[in-house]
């Protein structure tokens, strides 16, 4: 069953077209990894899913609801289904770690103060952090910030998780720990996930299917083995990380 469906998505910024007819379906409970070069529009794509950006043309369905034309409370109802891990974690720097993780809980749920405290501690423990509730974001390392960002995103049990470059800016061991968490979210909580990355190690580890975004369109989609054996030279150049090939970088 389809959880997210994108049909003919177009989006330009000024005179620069970024998305030029993206079509993509994400099934309920699957982890879809979207790969592509830096600046190929992956983050723009993910921001359309949560309603942060509106398409110039095209439709986006989330659990059957078309979200590209709705606003206000109706959009908020759909946003409630999403948890998002931002590239730089995007923790609120005027709030403590505990207040950051509680933020969504306070707005999306009606739990008591004690229940919220328990959930905050549980979520932080899930990402391997204990007793950090009173710290401020500037006291955390990059990897810790990312894990707090993940705890904040999963605190109110969203149905869909969006990960924007989850392994960028952290060491390979911590990146692998984040990959494990993404897999735990899928197996234990049956969450549908969309992961934006250009890290192929991470992609093969977490993906049920991989889609490649190039020139504003999805040019290939398949399971990790299918992508590895793709005959598309653009896909091959990207997954092998070669400077020479059909993708010109200079």
């Amino acid at each position, binding site marked *: 069953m389809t959880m997210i469906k994108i049909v003919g998505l177009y989006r330009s910024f000024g005179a620069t077209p970024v998305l030029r007819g993206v079509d993509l379906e994400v099934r309920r409970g699957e982890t879809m990894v979207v790969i592509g070069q830096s600046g190929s529009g992956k983050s723009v794509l993910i921001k359309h899913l949560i309603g942060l950006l509106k398409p110039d043309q095209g439709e986006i369905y989330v659990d059957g609801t078309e979200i590209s034309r709705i606003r206000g409370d109706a959009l908020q109802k759909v946003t409630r289904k999403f948890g998002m891990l931002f590239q730089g974690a995007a923790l*609120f720097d005027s709030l403590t770690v505990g207040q950051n993780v509680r933020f969504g809980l306070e707005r999306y749920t009606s739990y008591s103060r004690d229940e919220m405290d328990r959930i905050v501690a549980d979520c932080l423990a899930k990402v391997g952090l204990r007793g950090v509730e009173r710290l401020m974001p500037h006291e955390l390392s990059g990897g810790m910030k990312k894990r707090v960002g993940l705890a904040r995103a999963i605190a109110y049990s969203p149905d869909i998780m969006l990960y924007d470059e989850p392994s960028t800016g952290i060491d390979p061991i911590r990146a692998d720990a984040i990959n494990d968490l993404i897999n735990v979210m899928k197996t234990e909580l049956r969450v549908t996930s969309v992961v934006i990355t250009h890290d192929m190690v991470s992609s093969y580890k977490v993906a049920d299917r991989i889609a490649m975004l190039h020139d504003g369109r999805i040019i290939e989609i398949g399971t990790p083995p299918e992508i590895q054996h793709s005959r598309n030279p653009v896909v091959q150049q990207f997954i092998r990380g070669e400077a020479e090939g059909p993708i010109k970088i200079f």
Partner: protein
Amino acid sequence: MPFFPRPRHTIMFLEQLGEVGILIVQTLRSIFRRRWERGMLVRQLEEIGVRSIPVVTLTAAFGGLVFGLQTYIGFHRYIGAGSEAYAGPIISLGLSKELIPLLVAVMVSGRVGSAMAAQIGTMKITEQIDALFSLGADPVRYLVAPRAVASVIMVPCLTMFGDLIGMAAGYFYIVIAMGVNRHIYLQNTMLYLELWDVATGLIKAAVFGAVIAIIGCWQGLKTRGGAEGVGRATTRTVVISSITILILNFFLSKALPSNLKLQ
């Protein structure tokens, strides 16, 4: 060559006016909707009001002193010795209607408006505004509305406080430093200064408060780029809000009646 605004500049100006208009409407809608961000409002009341007291005290004290000095010289030179005791109402009127609201607004715009732009601008470039949205908080309701309400409440409060400090400083210079008759000075001040004069200054201060918050938040929300973008937003906030305050001050002075007595 005479200056004529080019069509591109006119369009940009109208676009920006439109952006501010939309932000004002969204802010008003957020203010009159339920579920207020009370914690944020309290924090902003403290930030805008309590923390501005030292700077307002200094500004109002020296504003009052220099106004007292010039008024004393004026009376002494053009009307004659002994007439300085009549400076009281002029000092009180000038300070409460014009000088203090203007000085306080410009100082608060420099201290608070620029901080609003820098804080919201930094949140914008580090995706914190997007994170707010994804966590169910409308950025206008969470960030702009509490700042606008706090500014509209606190700038008149600071102005009222500045009026007292400025008038006390004027009194200090004329009566204590220059030895003018205290009774005549106070009697004249009480006789000619009307409550409406003070109220006019407070009405203006409320409008200036709204201007400071809206321009600071608007510039913060439209910040682009890195640290350079935040720096630009901060500078623009101080320049735009100071100019807007100076222009609005004239039109408000013209529009508000000089007294409330029926003609």
